[in-house]
């Protein structure tokens, strides 16, 4: 097909529209970065668009030097690693088991599927975790409830089922034990799926703040996202926390907007800098999910 002149003009228009759409993502980010590094006077004069006025990294220094920021960062890293590891372990074990025949498979399958459609809701879960399991102010409350994910489990199960049976049969003929089959044949074959699902788990936990708000009142147990929430949206904080934050900002002689934008940039930075490299797993993951689910 030869491209006509009309088509070329169309493509240029198309590119312009796409650039406008994408600028709704780029411009706000430029704005945030500009405010975070602009001088205090410029910030207080309320005139910063997408380019910074002046240059200072005081706000960044202030955020990084906070004990809560560092502990929140550590908590987030720690929780993300633990959660990803245990979720993958539990869900892969379960997915593998479901590719076999065993007594009660049909009922256990229903047992898991039901949880995709019914849930107890926020309040019963909250009461269970705080009043009955006494997990208030522990990391267990943030980790355990989300470990089993039936949706991801079904994806992995479908991927394992897609492996030719001959592969594991050949291994068994060669004298491999059941666990060796899992370890040497199945796992390597579904490596890309495990990577994709693992990324989903990691992102979920990295971006988690709601469970943190529900189940802890200790500042030392905050996650990074919750730290940001407390810094930026402190309108409905209880009085002593908000005043503490306000006082510390004044003392440092930094405009609050400076400080908040710097916090947003720092919290977003890790994920924004690695997502271009991991996005292909997500694209693959959601496409597999849409075919199987």
């Amino acid at each position, binding site marked *: 097909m030869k491209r006509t002149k009309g088509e070329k003009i169309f493509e240029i228009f198309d590119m312009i*529209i796409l650039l406008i759409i994408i600028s709704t993502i780029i411009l706000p980010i430029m704005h945030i970065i500009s405010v975070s590094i602009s001088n205090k006077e410029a910030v207080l004069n309320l005139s910063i668009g997408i380019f910074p006025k002046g240059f200072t990294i005081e706000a960044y220094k202030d955020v990084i030097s906070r004990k809560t920021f560092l502990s929140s960062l550590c908590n987030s890293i720690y929780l993300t690693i633990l959660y990803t590891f245990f979720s993958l372990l539990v869900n892969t074990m*379960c997915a593998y088991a479901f590719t076999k025949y065993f*007594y009660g498979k049909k009922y256990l399958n229903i047992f898991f599927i039901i*949880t995709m459609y*019914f849930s107890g*809701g926020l309040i019963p879960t909250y009461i269970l975790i705080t009043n009955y*399991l006494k997990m208030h102010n522990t990391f267990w409350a943030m980790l*355990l409830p989300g470990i089993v994910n039936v949706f991801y489990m079904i994806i992995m199960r479908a991927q394992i089922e897609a492996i030719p049976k001959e592969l594991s049969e050949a291994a068994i003929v060669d004298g491999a034990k059941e666990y060796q089959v899992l370890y040497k044949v199945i796992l390597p074959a579904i490596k890309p799926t495990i990577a994709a699902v693992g990324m989903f788990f990691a992102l979920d936990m990295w*971006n988690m703040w709601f469970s943190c708000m529900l189940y802890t009142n200790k500042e030392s147990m905050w996650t990074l996202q919750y730290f940001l929430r407390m810094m930026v949206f402190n309108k409905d904080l209880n009085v002593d926390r908000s005043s503490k934050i306000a006082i510390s900002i004044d003392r440092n002689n930094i405009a609050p907007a400076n400080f908040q934008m710097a916090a947003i940039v720092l919290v977003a930075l890790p994920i924004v800098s690695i997502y271009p490299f991991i996005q292909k797993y997500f694209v693959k993951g959601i496409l597999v999910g849409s075919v199987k689910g």
Partner: protein
Amino acid sequence: MEQLVKKAYVNLNKVKFNPGRDIPIYFLLLPAVVLVIIFNYMPIYGIIIAFQKFSAFKGVFGSQWVGFDNFKYFLLDENFWRVFRNTVIINIYQIIFGFLVPIIFALLLNEITRNKFKKVIQTVSYLPHFISWVVAAGIFNSILSPTNGLVNVILNELFGIKPIYFLAKQEYFRSIIVLSCIWKGFGMSSVYYLASLSAIDTQLYEASYIDGAGKWRQTWHITIPGLKSIAVILLILQIGSMVSIGFEQIFLMYNPLVYDVGDVISTYTFRLGIEQTRYSLTAAIGFTQSVINFILLYAANMLSKKIIGWSMW
């Protein structure tokens, strides 16, 4: 092939208990089963507090039964109907606009022949999906802020409009919520459509070109029909999760000034349940919410079976 599947199915029903084969499998399943019982089934059992006057002292087993009193209470409460209305309105907006934007974006992107440009645009469009709602809401909060907000700076410099406190204005709040949701999701949602677009047979385009069809006719008669099934699937999934979506962004961005238009069932439940500890009442609301959710999912599924012959069950 079909016979094979049938055979496997029959076998499944006839499987007898065989300790040597089954016990190792049960060990593999054990952790997941235990976690699901504790964190999924026990809360489902906990819904019974919706029919009690729950007190933390007496617990789930000792509290007084009150029948449907909690349900009567919130059904007669005008606050509940306010948040119910908001939930429906915001979700309908979200479904209509949130549904169209990724399709349009995918169609626009599909026409681009420069691969490098395409790749960059696509990668940038995924960015909002990866950041948390806290960061996204923080960004929206600051670009809309009356002091230093990008939107106000632009309005002021181009049109001389005085700063507007968007997040405190009832007339803007719902649009902001819907826009922020679209902003965060359109890039990733377009992935489904782009995948379907690349699956369309290029021979169709060539044949229609020979027959003299222009770009628009091709889009209308080949491209759009090619997207139909994935679009219906995504629409159904979205309708199915209608009552529960929207908590995080609304909770982060709303304030008492916009409760009248922005407060939804999930945020209302949170304030009432967690902050005011009215457990039984909110469990009753939560239960109603799950039931509505399930009915919607079921209805949407039936509909899709009829329209495109695809269903989740």
